[in-house]
């Protein structure tokens, strides 16, 4: 009996040791979807295979409530090691003080040298410190339909905004239900307005889309008015109905060929490949404006580490693994986002393909394409989107003068502490 007890004790000890060595990383994602979760699980199992003794537990709350859940869990310091952070939630999460600064890790990592220009700056939105490592980015580019535009002898993509307007005007024939520009009037149209407006500038602050390099607000500059007026001209080449268009309507109109020029994010690629086929549309870099430049912004999502995590180093290892070129390619392909590692565009056949031409040109030409950031760390940001949308709609309907809108916007941001 004594012997038996001894054996049991030894076995228990052994089992205990084995389990004690297992580290469990708790990871929570935001943009949960069945397809995405599958890829995520695949990547996790690869990581686990490479790192015996590490187990990754994935938490996938439904998307609608994910942000709220993460805010609550993190603020209550519930066991979480890695949290998914998007550009829109970064400042809220970081301001709680529960995210770890990744700067010490980044300083030593080899990854930083290969990142797409502007990604790290974008990640440093809050207090100039990186609280996340982005693994997928969104940048808008120009999509166009050669088979439609070639009917009007327009075979190339417009290189400048002037050209874009000229092309759009040339093909707009309302009686044939043919229009030019694929306009966005509803549901966060902010980026669309800004791409056009800032193209009239050549001195935008690389840290803030709404500031000039001299620290003044762009809305008080004469060129902003030119920008809006130009935007109104573009609207004239779009169906009137587009004032009520969101993402779905834009894609629908592009696919049906009614409006063959579209500014959109890379997540449109997957949709278009399915609805149109990859040979019936192309991408080109954003047209350059009067200022000779274009100012795209980088939307991003990635992983952050909680400041109270017990396994910070292992968590970083996971982040680095996730951003290695092969894994990054696998991840972004499914996600419909752009990889953050420049090497992916050279090695992966999918991202090497012609469809990504628009983006690769922009990433390679830092002279004309200057990535800038939205003031996402400003508390007024969330209110801004609603104000921007409704005032712009009033301008489009002729109920408000562009000058009045610009003044409203300037006053809004001044009150929020932006600009001199």
């Amino acid at each position, binding site marked *: 009996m004594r012997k038996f007890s001894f054996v049991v004790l030894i076995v228990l000890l052994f089992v205990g040791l084995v389990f004690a060595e297992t580290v469990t990383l708790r990871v929570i994602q935001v943009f949960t979807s069945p397809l995405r979760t599958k890829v995520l699980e695949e990547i996790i199992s690869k990581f686990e295979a490479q790192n015996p003794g590490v187990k990754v537990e994935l938490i996938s709350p439904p998307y609608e409530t994910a942000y709220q859940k993460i*805010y609550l869990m993190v603020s209550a310091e519930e066991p979480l090691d890695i949290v998914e952070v998007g550009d829109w939630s970064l400042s809220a999460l970081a301001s709680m003080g529960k995210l770890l600064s990744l700067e010490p890790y980044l300083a030593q990592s080899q990854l930083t040298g290969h990142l797409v220009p502007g990604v790290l700056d974008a990640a440093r939105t809050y207090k100039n410190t990186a609280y996340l490592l982005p693994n997928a980015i969104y940048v808008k580019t120009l999509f166009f339909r050669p088979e439609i535009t070639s009917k009007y002898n327009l075979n190339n993509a417009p290189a400048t905004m002037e050209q874009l307007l000229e092309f759009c005007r040339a093909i707009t024939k309302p009686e044939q239900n043919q229009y030019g520009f694929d306009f966005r*009037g*509803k549901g966060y149209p902010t980026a669309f307005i800004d791409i056009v407006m800032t193209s009239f500038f050549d001195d935008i602050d690389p840290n803030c889309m709404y500031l000039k390099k001299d620290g003044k607000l762009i809305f008080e500059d004469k060129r902003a008015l030119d920008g809006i007026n130009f935007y109104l001209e573009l609207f004239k080449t779009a169906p009137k*109905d587009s004032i009520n268009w969101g993402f779905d309507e834009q894609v629908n109109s592009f696919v049906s060929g009614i409006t063959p020029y579209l500014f959109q994010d890379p997540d449109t690629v997957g949709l278009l490949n399915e609805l149109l086929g990859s040979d019936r549309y192309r991408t080109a870099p954003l047209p350059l404006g009067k200022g000779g430049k274009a100012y795209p912004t980088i939307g991003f999502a990635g992983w952050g580490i909680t400041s109270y995590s017990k396994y910070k180093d292992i968590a970083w290892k996971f982040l680095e693994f996730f951003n290695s070129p092969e894994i990054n390619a696998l991840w972004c392909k499914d996600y419909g986002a752009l990889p953050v590692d420049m090497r992916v565009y050279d090695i992966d056949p999918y991202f090497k393909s012609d469809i990504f031409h628009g983006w690769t040109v922009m990433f390679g030409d830092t002279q004309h394409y200057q990535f800038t950031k939205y003031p996402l760390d400003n508390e007024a940001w*969330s*209110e801004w989107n*609603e104000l921007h949308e409704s005032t712009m*709609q009033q301008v*489009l309907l002729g109920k408000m003068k562009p000058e009045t809108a610009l003044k409203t916007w300037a006053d809004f941001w001044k009150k929020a502490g932006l600009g001199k």
Partner: protein
Amino acid sequence: MKRLRFWIFLMLLPTFALIFFINLYPLVRGGVISFQRLTVFTLNRPRFIGFENYRTLITDPNFWNIILNTVVWIFFSVLFQLVFGFILALLLVKPFKGRGLYMGVVFYPWALSGFAIGLLWSWILNGQFGILNDILIKLHLIKQPISFLSDPRFAMFSVIMINVWYGIPFFAIMLLAALQSVPKELYEAAQIDGATMWHRLVRITIPCIKPAITSTVLLRIIWVMNFPDIIYGTTRGGPAGATNILSVQMINIVYYQNNFGKASALGIIITGVLLAFSVAYLIVAEKGAFEL
């Protein structure tokens, strides 16, 4: 006896707990939040700011426009729902062949989710590739497509039309049940006295089902006021605020502005308005001053 009391209390506890947590607690909490500055940025450290949220809401230049839109939205939605629902109920009260199937089809909209209806109709009414425009053009009724949802002149009319389509079945169901309870003898007596169809409707049917009409109208007014689904699914209150009503504005404040304090303040305002309205309405209706 004491034991019995204990058991009674124990058995009632779940009900009280349920009401407390589901109804009372959120209401009180919403009231508290409405006096706080609570946004995503201040989730951890909300602070009391008195009536600041209410002040910002009421001094917003668009606020009175939103109120006006809300009144228009409720009045016309409920009016047309009542009229068409009543007509439908009258048609359905007498049995005919295939009535069950017909009722099933007619009542179908009521079973759909509001957001789904919003999305469905936003495609039907789309000014560019909407099916309704297509039909109207092919029938040579119009030459240019109508921007139902993106022209401020038509947008409110369009969302009300959708809401009427959605709400008719509810009135029909409620009024049909009431119609079936009207004693047959009254009609027979009236017929002997030589009453016309119109007289029977105005002198017998409507007075008999008046309580049902009163309560249904009240219910619908409250629901329609708190029913942002259709507008949110089609226009989100646009274009340029043309269809913005109080409940849609509340959603916009939560999802766009992430300002939970301000949204709660608006919620409390809505509750207050509805409470005042319901009391006034019931007093008038009870007095019999409410005539249709």
